[in-house]
């Protein structure tokens, strides 16, 4: 064999190897859906961005952002999205009737008479303010379509009841102007003050008995709220501005006095700008991913400022989780243009000023979300060759194992309320989704029934 022939053989072999991966099943599914998809692609994400926030046990607030695309599909497969019945959840009957009564956190709270969670309820997003008190935003069948519905628990998820949902549709981000409405995520700061968002923004200050549509002064009315978290008496939201960057607005939890921060978070060149907002006490971080980490902002001394996020050089997306105001981890999917590929963990102990790689690679090919409930425990949700899976490390990232079975679908949520209690929502890709809870620090996860 001549040198030229060997060169060509090696070149072809190198190309074959670089392109050895076949089209992922997700792409095959996406393309199969094209003939039924007349709407033009939206100029902003088709993904829902959901996260859990937690409070308690001296951990500060722990939030993990997870990006998913499948949930929007799941909702469509569920029979379309209809408007929510005004004033109450589907099938909830008189659930909206407020009555005075005793919230342990405020004498002004409102008690909503419990009613059963409607049959066919599919969870989309969850928030817990203590080990006992949590809310789940989901969808439920109504009038041939699906409506927004909210379930509430006061006993750590053992029992659930329906409470009023915002009078809007289940939010689907993207998919045409008509679909850019509704809410897809929920957060509560305490038993009174909560928000439903994505892309619309709604607030309640009576424990969910009534909801009111919010506007952020200085932003176009149609600017979708893509992320929202609450901590230390404040609520912070990231909204996608038509000027093609993200703006950050903050308010006191009970005041609705939204104010825009001067800092802007630019978007990248990819088709799916994705914002990840994480709070821990009075600290906060924002990472903008657009297939790769693009930009960031940090909350310091009460003000959001531009911040250089980790993983700018890995050519892949990154997600954050914080254990406290100083300690956070970034799980970054090192892209095909760098090596070694895979999901790497980077830790900061100086509030995000610097990061260093830690532990070993997580057994994932892509990462959707990460949680960092205590310094020794890191839980990440993503995909590997086995499918969608949650993996956990209980020795600071040195070793990993699957903590949920690998399956089909995507993760809609991941976060811990305490060192022991956490949740994740799995959208199974067939129109159904399931809320999993752990009560042993992420070692085992079990489905929650509504």
């Amino acid at each position: 064999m001549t040198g030229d022939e060997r060169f060509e053989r090696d070149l072809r072999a190198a190309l074959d190897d670089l392109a050895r991966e076949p089209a992922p099943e997700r792409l095959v599914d996406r393309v199969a859906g094209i003939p039924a998809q007349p709407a033009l692609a939206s100029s902003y994400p088709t993904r829902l961005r959901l996260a859990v926030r937690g409070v308690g046990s001296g951990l500060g607030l722990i939030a993990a952002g997870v990006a998913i695309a499948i949930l929007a599909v799941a909702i469509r497969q569920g029979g379309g999205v209809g408007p929510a019945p005004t004033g109450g959840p589907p099938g909830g009957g008189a659930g909206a009737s407020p009555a005075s009564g005793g919230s342990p956190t405020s004498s002004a709270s409102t008690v909503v008479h419990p009613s059963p969670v409607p049959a066919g309820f599919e969870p989309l997003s969850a928030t817990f303010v203590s080990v006992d008190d949590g809310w789940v935003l989901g969808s439920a069948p109504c009038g041939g379509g699906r409506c927004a519905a909210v379930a509430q628990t006061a006993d750590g998820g053992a029992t659930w009841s329906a409470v009023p949902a915002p009078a809007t549709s289940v939010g689907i981000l993207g998919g045409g102007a008509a679909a850019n409405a509704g809410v897809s995520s929920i957060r509560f700061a305490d038993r009174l003050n909560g928000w439903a968002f994505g892309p619309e923004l709604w607030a309640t200050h009576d424990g969910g008995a009534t909801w009111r549509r919010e506007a952020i002064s200085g932003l176009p009315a149609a600017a979708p709220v893509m992320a929202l978290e609450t901590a230390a008496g404040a609520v912070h939201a990231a909204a996608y501005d038509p000027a093609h960057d993200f703006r950050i607005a903050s308010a006191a939890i009970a005041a609705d006095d939204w104010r825009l921060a001067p800092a802007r978070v630019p978007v990248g060149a990819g088709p799916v700008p994705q914002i990840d907002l994480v709070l821990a006490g009075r600290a906060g971080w924002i990472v903008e991913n657009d297939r790769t980490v693009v930009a960031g902002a940090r909350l310091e001394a009460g003000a959001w400022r531009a911040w250089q996020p980790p993983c700018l050089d890995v050519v892949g997306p990154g997600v954050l989780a914080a254990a406290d105001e100083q300690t956070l981890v970034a799980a970054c999917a090192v892209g095909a243009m760098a090596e070694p590929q895979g999901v790497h963990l980077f830790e900061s102990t100086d509030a995000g000023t610097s990061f260093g790689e830690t532990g070993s690679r997580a057994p994932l090919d892509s990462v959707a979300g990460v949680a960092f409930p205590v310094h020794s425990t890191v839980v990440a949700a993503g995909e590997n060759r086995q499918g969608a899976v949650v993996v956990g490390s209980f020795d600071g990232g040195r070793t990993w194992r699957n903590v949920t079975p690998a399956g089909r679908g995507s993760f809609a949520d991941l976060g811990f309320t305490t060192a022991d209690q956490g949740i994740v929502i799995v959208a199974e890709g067939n129109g159904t989704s399931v809320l999993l809870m752990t009560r042993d620090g992420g070692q085992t996860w079990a489905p929650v029934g509504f």
Partner: protein
Amino acid sequence: MIEGRIEVARIVRLAEDRRDADRARAFADLVDRRSLDRAYRYATLVLGSRADAEDATHDAALTAWRRFSELREPDRFDAWFGRILVNVCRDRLRARRRAPASLDADPPVPTAPAHATLAAPDETDDVATRDALATALRSLSADHREVVALRFYLDLTVDQIAARTGVGQGTVKSRLHYAIRHLRAAWDRASDRSPER
């Protein structure tokens, strides 16, 4: 009269529905697993990112669906879809250059995978040279990487590459010449360091 109009409208709608269904079936037959694999792999080589490759392949398929009525000869689907894909990949590369992102202006091709997947232990010389080629591919310009992928991965002729990329044959030859010269130099350097074969 009104009933008649309704009936005509219904028949037209049925015919349109049937046409839509036929079109969807034809599209599904052509944009099958094989063509998606081929498109995705090409996009991976050119864009250097599997995530971008996935989006580019999807966007190309979406464009193909929207322009499906322009495909006169189904036998020429591969070439037609290939042209769409080449343009989608170029658009993405241009968008990257405009964006204030962390990507290099000229994004590289993926690096070589773990050696074990490339060669058996007794083929370390092959591994070294292919690694060197992967690194050299990464440093090619997008235009050069495009012609290399079309020529040596999709096995297109210079004529076919010119048709697919919309540039002249002379330009294709020139790009191939400079790309191969760069790759060959890297390969030669690696070969010099490898044991004699």
